[in-house]
């Protein structure tokens, strides 16, 4: 029973740390499936976390914070779109630029506005998202196994957590069951064909980039307004890149994305839990190894040693209409 409780605790924190990964990886999915590589997920998420934290602190409303987070993230996404769609610039370079601008601007503006060393004021009450108890969670908590799973693992998360998991089937539906999704996938594989069919490649790609911005915005809001109460300098700490790794690991498929993010989140939760503890058979595993594992796994996958990750064919290539 003790092991079971430990497992529930680990799984619960797995869910907690996976949410921003899922949101950011789904964001990247919309963009990359449309042929726009985006390594600026990290920057957009960071800027959104700051905007959310700052707006919520000033207005004392979590919803306004969320709106501000989404707004800022979409603006950055549009910069990326402008550079890579309209100007046909290098998409990697543009993504790198956005990461740096967000990293610097959040600290400079945070320090100028709040004077707390790059933090935003502590959020409380209405300015922060609160956890939701599912119905009857307290009543059935005492039932062994099921009660524990229901009330500790499934219940008691933030609204945004449930939203993130709901977005997984939603994204699948959009991508594979709607006209927009079909065109989105087509424009990432063969923009020429989409153009021939009389559909604007530019407008489609812009819409994909905006979707990416919205989801990164929610991910950022989750970080600064749900997971913690306020923005802290550099709080994304590479999550955008783990999300990118998860997206590749999932071979650009929505349901796989969720499992990849849960796996990487689980590794993260385990590495915190296991610090200094010995594992049976293997002995002490350095924490750093656990932290590097998502990246190692992605490299191994990319190299084609476990399956093969094939990116959208037109990814990274600006579309030039025939002259």
């Amino acid at each position, binding site marked *: 029973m003790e092991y079971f409780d430990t497992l529930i605790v680990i799984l619960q924190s797995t869910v907690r740390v996976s949410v921003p990964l899922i949101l950011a990886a789904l964001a990247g999915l919309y963009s990359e499936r449309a042929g726009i590589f985006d390594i600026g997920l990290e920057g957009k998420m960071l800027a959104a976390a700051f905007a959310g934290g700052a707006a919520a602190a000033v207005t004392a409303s979590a919803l306004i914070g969320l709106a501000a987070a989404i707004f800022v993230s979409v603006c950055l996404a549009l910069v990326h779109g402008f550079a890579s769609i309209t100007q046909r610039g290098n998409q990697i370079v543009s993504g790198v630029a956005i990461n740096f601008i967000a990293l610097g601007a959040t600290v*400079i503006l945070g320090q100028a506005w709040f004077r707390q060393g790059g933090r935003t004021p502590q959020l409380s009450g209405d300015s922060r998202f609160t956890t939701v108890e599912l119905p009857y969670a307290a009543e059935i908590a005492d039932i062994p196994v099921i009660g524990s799973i229901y009330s500790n693992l499934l219940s008691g998360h933030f609204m945004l957590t449930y939203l993130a998991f709901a977005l997984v089937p939603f994204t699948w539906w959009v991508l594979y069951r709607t006209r927009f999704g079909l065109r989105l996938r087509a424009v990432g594989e063969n923009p020429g064909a989409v153009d021939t069919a009389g559909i604007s490649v530019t407008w489609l790609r812009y819409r994909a980039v905006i979707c990416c911005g919205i989801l990164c915005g929610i991910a950022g809001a989750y970080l600064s307004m749900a997971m913690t109460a306020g923005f802290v300098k550099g709080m994304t700490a590479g999550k955008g890149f783990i999300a990118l790794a998860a997206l590749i690991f999932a071979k650009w498929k929505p349901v796989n994305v969720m499992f990849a993010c849960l796996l990487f989140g689980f590794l993260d939760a385990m590495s915190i839990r296991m610090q200094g503890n010995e594992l049976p058979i293997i002995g002490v595993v350095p924490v750093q190894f656990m*932290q590097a594992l998502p*990246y190692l796994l992605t490299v191994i996958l990319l190299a084609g040693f476990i399956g093969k990750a094939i990116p959208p064919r037109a990814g990274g290539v600006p579309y030039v209409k025939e002259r």
Partner: protein
Amino acid sequence: MSAPYAKLPAWVDYGLIPLINLIVAFLVAGLVVLAVGESPLRAASLLIEGAFGYGEGIGFTLYYATNFIFTGLAVAVAFHCGLFNIGGEGQAYVAGLGVALPCLWLDQFAPWYVIFPAAILGSALVGGFWAMIPGWLQAKRGSHVVITTIMFNFIASSLMVYVLVDVLKPAGSMAPQTRTFAEGGQLPRLDWLLASVGLDIGGAPFNMSFLLALVAAFVVWLVIWRTKLGYEIRTMGHSPTAASYAGIRQSRIIIITMMMSGALAGMMALNPIMGDQHRMQLDFVGGAGFVGIAVALMGRSHPVGIVPAAILFGMLYQGGAEISFEMPQISRDMITIIQGLVILFAGALENMFRPAITAFFATLGGARSDKSLPAAE
């Protein structure tokens, strides 16, 4: 669609357009300064004063520039082959081992001029090896070098934390760093160089590795533009198809280019470790690998452009530190913004102003030819 833009004079292409992009980047940065409630003009004058106003400032500017010459060259070499090496940060970090280990082994017995070549070799080998793996994966397994080098940055960071905390940290010490090197592991400073023009560098750690950086810049020029290998690299960068028709072995070139790139990034580790701190600390690279991207883009991947671009960023680093004394609102992080803006405007948006400039020169040319025609009206 082979030439989307009309041909411009070389000085416009290599001088004017990069300059305009740079100015726009700084104007936007000025807006940020304004938004924070400080005067951009005063910030700019403080910046230049702090970076070039006195000997010690110049020493620090050139010290930072040394890092950026190495990492800028690393990114540029890969660019010539059409590869984007974002892994300079990780390559330099791991290459710290190639510098620190010879120092730790030999510093009691050998003078610096024996250890320095060993450390150069060590850093280049380790950095080159760390970049070779993504290169090999790209060449043989088709995994994209951008993604693998990003992943390798994180792997490098975890690896180095492990090595510094669990292996190299002297017993009984709390700080995650190696012991301080003896005399042999310390590079002589170049105070005589600036003293010859009457400047006192004070405490600035401006050292021998600056000269090595200049040599590296020259060697890069030599290899890329004056050897068969360089020709093959540039051919690959322009057109992989043409390269393979010409009988160039693509995978070999990709791997060699990545190794060169990694070796250059790796040599950056010499400057902070042997030149300044005389020990290897956690996170000694401090983002220099990423600055290299901005430097290479600004310098148009040519050593002649990279060295001044690196000095400009050295100025931003040193001057930025000075500004924060006078304007507490503006910290080092301002440099991160400028770096991002330079990458955005000189890299991703490099062609934004080109149509307008082309049009401007076309009308200029048109006006001239109009004049040459008698009685055109």
